[in-house]
């Protein structure tokens, strides 16, 4: 079966502003794929080309084996899409709004809409304009999932959702993948992607710079370590520990970053008079540094 999403040399230029440049992406059927990158990196541009909202300047895209431009209607019938900013008609009830989108799709099973709304804790009886950002996001999510599409394309799906709803959303995504559908989502927050995705594409300044499995990504991401000792520690502790960056001693603290797993570092630190250890989850920037950061020569 052809991949869920396949792009070759996909490029979008907006005058002088940056779009995306020669993106080659392959998302397999049935996987949960995260497009990770900072705001303005080209995530939304990539997504909107797949939905035929934007037309590429060069290159091509194939979605579920179809051409977004030529096969638009038959393709979009099988895709659920959550835009970055779900623009809703303000003077309308949530139920009416969803009924309208359902009608534009030729009708969907209403019980499913109700079930999704209940699951995400969305009140169908409310007016759209009275909704918070998070509740509007829920309306967007319900319309994306309501027709049980083969492919979900979700642009920053969890922005505005509170942690409880975020977990329910994660469960929904896992179920969706389990029934064989593909989920393609974008994010600028690593833990969010980590919780959901099988594979991750990293996009930066319009270029897809890496595609990795979640494990591969974690193996390379930088972790920030802050170790507190009883007395000022000696940097020589870190000798022979691979992948250590930016090591420095400040008072009783030894701070550094380590690429990938922390086991060797922890063992080395334990040789000193270690009191406390904190390891911070890698941020998006730490992921990038994991791929690009120049390794410093070993301290000692």
């Amino acid at each position: 079966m052809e991949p869920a999403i396949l792009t070759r040399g996909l490029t979008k230029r907006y005058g002088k502003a940056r779009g995306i440049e020669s993106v080659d992406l392959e998302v397999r059927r049935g996987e949960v794929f995260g497009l990770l990158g900072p705001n303005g990196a080209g995530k939304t541009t990539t997504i909107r080309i797949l939905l035929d909202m934007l037309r590429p300047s060069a290159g091509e895209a194939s979605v579920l084996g179809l051409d977004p431009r030529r096969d638009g209607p038959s393709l979009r019938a099988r895709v659920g899409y959550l835009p970055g900013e779900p623009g809703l008609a303000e003077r309308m009830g949530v139920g009416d709004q969803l009924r309208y989108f359902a009608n534009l799709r030729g009708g969907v099973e209403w019980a499913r809409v109700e079930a999704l709304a209940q699951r995400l804790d969305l009140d169908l009886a409310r007016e759209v304009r009275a909704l918070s950002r998070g509740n509007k996001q829920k309306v967007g999510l319900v319309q994306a999932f309501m027709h049980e599409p083969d492919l979900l394309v979700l642009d920053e799906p969890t922005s505005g959702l509170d942690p409880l709803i975020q977990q329910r959303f994660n469960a929904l995504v896992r179920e969706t993948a389990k029934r064989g559908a593909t989920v393609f989502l974008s994010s600028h927050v690593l833990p969010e992607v980590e919780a959901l995705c099988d594979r991750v594409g990293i996009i930066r300044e319009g270029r897809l710079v890496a595609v990795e499995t979640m494990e591969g990504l974690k193996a390379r991401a930088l972790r920030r370590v802050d170790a507190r000792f009883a007395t000022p520690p000696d940097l020589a502790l870190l000798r022979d520990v691979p992948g250590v960056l930016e090591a420095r001693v400040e008072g009783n603290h030894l701070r550094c970053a380590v690429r990938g797993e922390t086991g060797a570092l922890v063992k080395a630190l334990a040789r000193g008079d270690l009191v406390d250890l904190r390891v911070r989850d890698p941020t998006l920037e730490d992921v990038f540094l994991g791929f690009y950061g120049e390794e410093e020569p070993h301290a000692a």
Partner: protein
Amino acid sequence: MPREGLFLRNVALKSLRDQRRALVGFSIGIVIYVGFLAAFFPTVRDQAAKFDQILDAYPPALKTAFGIDSLTTGAGYLHAELFSAMLPILFLVYAIGRGSDLIAGEEERGQLELVLATPLTRRAAALQKALALGAGLLVLGLVLFATLLVADLAVGLDLSLVRLAAEVASLVLLAAACGALALAAGALRGRRGLAIAVATAVAAGAYVLDLVSKLVEGARPLRWASLFSYYDGSPAILHGPDWAGLAVLAGVAVALVGVAVAAFDRRDLGRA
């Protein structure tokens, strides 16, 4: 089914639903303004001799410019007081306001993204928007027509139904052409402000050109270029239906809808 289920069926009906407040507001405005002016007609008619004297003193150019033919017949009175300025302004404001909003306005608010994420084509969406605009104008036209019929019964305007219908039809078509221009400008660039500016400038320009060509002999050959001249060149309420004028207005409206549909299909959709 939630209430209003009918108006959630497709883009055309939903867009008509979105116009409901504007339609009610403009309808009330039409009824009040037309009713108010009609109420004065008996006074004007009963003082016919005096008004004709006053009118005789007006410079002919002024009378031509402002569509004053005779204030003492119902048709002449309505043409001078309503159809030569106030009603076109009202209908054009509505048409340009809605026409610019239906595509460009919704696009700027990010509301088209989810609509176009459905299996609907861009062409179908634009065409349904145009139909909704036409339907809205038709509603206003019917409200105007009905109001004038009632006014006729109340104060005896002595109107010809055919002429009145043709006059209202040409007003609706003039508005449809200007609204379609706003729709097309919005479909081309996705900017509501720009669409309003373009359509308003063209409509005002057409009005001025029509006026000048009535007053200045040398400008007469240019009159064909004014959209307004196909509306008010030979007012139907005074002289009977101007079929050619109606055809030109309808043709321009249809052509501009075609431009809107084609343009919207071709370009990138803007963001909110």
